[in-house]
């Protein structure tokens, strides 16, 4: 018979064993097993193709990739990876949005990989990274150290529906990227012609809305010369006249195409959390949208018969330089991972010519590996975006990137609703971001940041 004392002792012992078991660090894996957090469940098959090719190489034979699809979501929370690193269960290599690299490096979440390059490549970091587009390398550089290797990239442009433009009598040559770059005045005029309302004043169709899709403040900031941070003064410059002009652009547009009506339009035809097939572009309600090569795959999948084409982002005046910005993913090494040759070989393969040549045609966007670009191993429909890369750049690599993004996005919302003026929001933005950046006194972005990149054709 079980006595009360026995029962209590057994219960306490079981609880202690369970607690200790849960807290125990995971058994260290052998060097031949690489734990990898991949690009996401939807693209797991593409990951596996690259891994299969890696295993077929001499360097990759005998190496097992323990794959978990835990995608990183841009400015979303980092609690998963922080918890994993703190708990000793982090992957050896993680596919991460490059935008988060500097912030994550600044908090000590990532391992610098310069040592791996010097150890296994017999090359300096600068020399070795010349294989990739410069702005993608810059985005992975914090405090002079490299924290990952870039995978894919993209650029922003205008997607338009030829049907709708033709029906409205618009000269399609204006939209031909080979012949012309639209100006803001032209796109406004076209938008007027394409916008229709019903008897109650609701928008039935819309031409263009600069705050829709990829119409982030950064998108227009690059065209209007607005910089978030100055290396010369080591200071945040969110209250500059250029930033004011970014928010004036939104305010001006919202005055003619009122926010409430446009918002009702978007809530109707592409409500929040709607499936990717339900967009105002696919239902032929919206004629032009700001987007990137990542739209190509969904266009082919959900609206293969629509004549959707791409052109440059609008410029201030005829003859102004074209501009864009680019994001993308990278492979990084979380803190505490074993920095082995096998890990390095996998990273090098995945992000190098072989890996990107397999991956990019499947993804629809662009490679960052220059040899892969030169070989044309990407979706040919993304060619215009490839042409955008020389004058494109990444978002500024700052340790307060998420705060800055969040602040700018909220300011855009305030301006288009009309609750704050452009003057007010730029003052608030400076107040919100500058104190956080002040913790990184004298911070310098890579010297090459913002300069044109050399892209082979």
């Amino acid at each position, binding site marked *: 018979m079980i006595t009360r004392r026995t029962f209590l002792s057994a219960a306490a012992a079981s609880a202690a064993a369970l607690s200790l078991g849960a807290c125990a660090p995971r058994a260290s894996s052998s060097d031949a097993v690489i734990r990898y957090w991949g690009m996401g469940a939807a693209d797991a098959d593409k990951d596996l193709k690259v891994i299969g090719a890696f295993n077929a190489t001499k360097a990759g034979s005998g190496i097992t990739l323990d794959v978990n699809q835990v995608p990183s979501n841009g400015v979303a*929370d980092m609690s998963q990876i922080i918890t994993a*690193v*703190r708990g000793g269960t982090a992957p050896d290599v993680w596919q991460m949005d490059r935008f988060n690299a500097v*912030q994550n490096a600044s908090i000590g979440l990532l391992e610098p990989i310069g040592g791996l390059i010097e150890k296994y490549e017999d090359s300096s970091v600068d020399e070795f990274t010349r294989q990739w587009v410069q702005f993608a390398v810059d985005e992975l550089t914090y405090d002079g150290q490299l924290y990952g290797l870039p995978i894919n990239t993209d650029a922003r442009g205008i997607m338009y529906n030829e049907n709708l433009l033709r029906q409205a009598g618009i000269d399609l040559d204006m939209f031909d990227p080979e012949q012309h770059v639209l100006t803001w005045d032209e796109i406004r005029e076209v938008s007027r012609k394409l916008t229709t309302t019903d008897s*109650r004043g609701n928008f039935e169709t819309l031409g263009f809305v600069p705050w829709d899709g990829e119409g982030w403040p950064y998108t227009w900031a690059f065209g209007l010369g607005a910089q978030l941070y100055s290396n010369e003064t080591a200071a945040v410059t969110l209250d500059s006249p250029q930033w004011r002009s970014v928010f004036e652009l939104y305010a001006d547009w919202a005055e003619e195409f009122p926010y409430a009506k446009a918002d009702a339009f978007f*809530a*109707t035809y592409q409500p929040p959390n709607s499936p990717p097939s339900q967009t105002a572009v696919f239902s032929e309600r919206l004629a032009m949208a700001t987007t990137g090569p990542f739209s190509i795959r969904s266009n082919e999948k959900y609206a293969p018969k629509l004549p959707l084409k791409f052109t440059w982002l609008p410029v201030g005046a005829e003859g102004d330089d074209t501009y864009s910005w680019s994001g993308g993913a990278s492979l990084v090494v979380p803190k505490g991972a074993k920095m082995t040759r096998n890990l390095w070989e996998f990273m090098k393969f995945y992000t190098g010519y072989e890996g990107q040549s397999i991956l990019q045609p499947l993804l629809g966007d662009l490679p960052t590996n220059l040899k892969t670009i030169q070989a044309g191993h990407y979706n040919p429909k993304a060619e215009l975006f490839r042409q955008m890369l020389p004058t494109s750049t990444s978002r500024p690599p700052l340790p307060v990137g998420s*705060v800055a993004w*969040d602040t700018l996005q909220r300011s855009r*919302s305030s301006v288009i609703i009309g609750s704050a003026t452009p003057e007010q929001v730029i003052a608030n933005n400076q107040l919100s971001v500058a104190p956080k950046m002040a913790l990184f006194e004298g911070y310098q972005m890579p010297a090459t940041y913002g300069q044109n990149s050399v892209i082979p054709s």
Partner: protein
Amino acid sequence: MTATGLTARAPSGAAPPDEVEKDATASPPQRRRHRLSRSDRRDLALGLKYISPWLIGILVFVVYPVGYSIYLSFTRYSGMGAPTWVGVGNYVTAFADPLVGKAAGNTLFFALIAVPLGLVVALTLALAMNQNVREVAWYRTIFYAPSLIPAFAMSFIFIVFLNPQFGAFNQVLNLFGESNVNLLGDPTGVKIAIILMAQLGAGNAALIFLAGLRNVPRTVYEAARVDGAGPMRQFLSITLPLLTPVLLFNLITGVSGALQVFTEAYIVTNGTGDPDAGALFYMMYLYKNAFGFAELGYASALAVLLFLAGLAMALLIFWCSRRFVNYDVEAS
């Protein structure tokens, strides 16, 4: 309960109650320490063993995290490396941060409307559930059912309900010739939508009200009816006063829940809190700072401030409750 607070049994050697009372009146009260008998100690050890799962749970999952959060609130901490002591810096930043004011304002707006409205809705549901009809069990199920819908599912239902083109809300507006509006696209409208969403969870409070209603003695109503009181008079003079202890409970839990509103706003706004930070509630801003910006120290300071605000409100409600809560009539 004895001075030890551990057992109802009088410890051996303790003075009889009348003597204690005499001593207390003869001289200033003195704290008397009773030595625990062997039996008391054995009982204490056994009692502690029995409650040890709870004790361990509360120490590990409540006391330690709360204590650590308070410590972190005085540091700069990203979740990695060692926290850096910054004194009251995070609190100073919080008071100067315009978004803290905005988020607190949104949360108070929500609490001031959602909580009283929730009490009215819950009480109405409880009254409906308390009707003396044969199908009452069905009514109770139907009225309670919306409370079982998870918050995220409810949020999606509301997104469809408020759709400017197809949603029922705009269909009604259209009947009056109004143009379509997107309530979720307006800084005030989105808060109102979330307040309305919260009312669909009133079933839980309604069940507590129902238990209170079932405890009101029938004889009181019968006496009132004999005296000629109508249904409204009975409600105002009997039901409501006797429900005040339950009302107080629902009020405090309602305020506590309202201060932590998060899920619906997070889903409806895709985690942004927009438009124009109109749905940026305090917990959302706290969450963003902790896990989006890796500022766990600052987020901890925000959490401490929220705790203090919640505590102050609970104390205020308790203080006010002396004026309106009626404990005079025991449940039958």
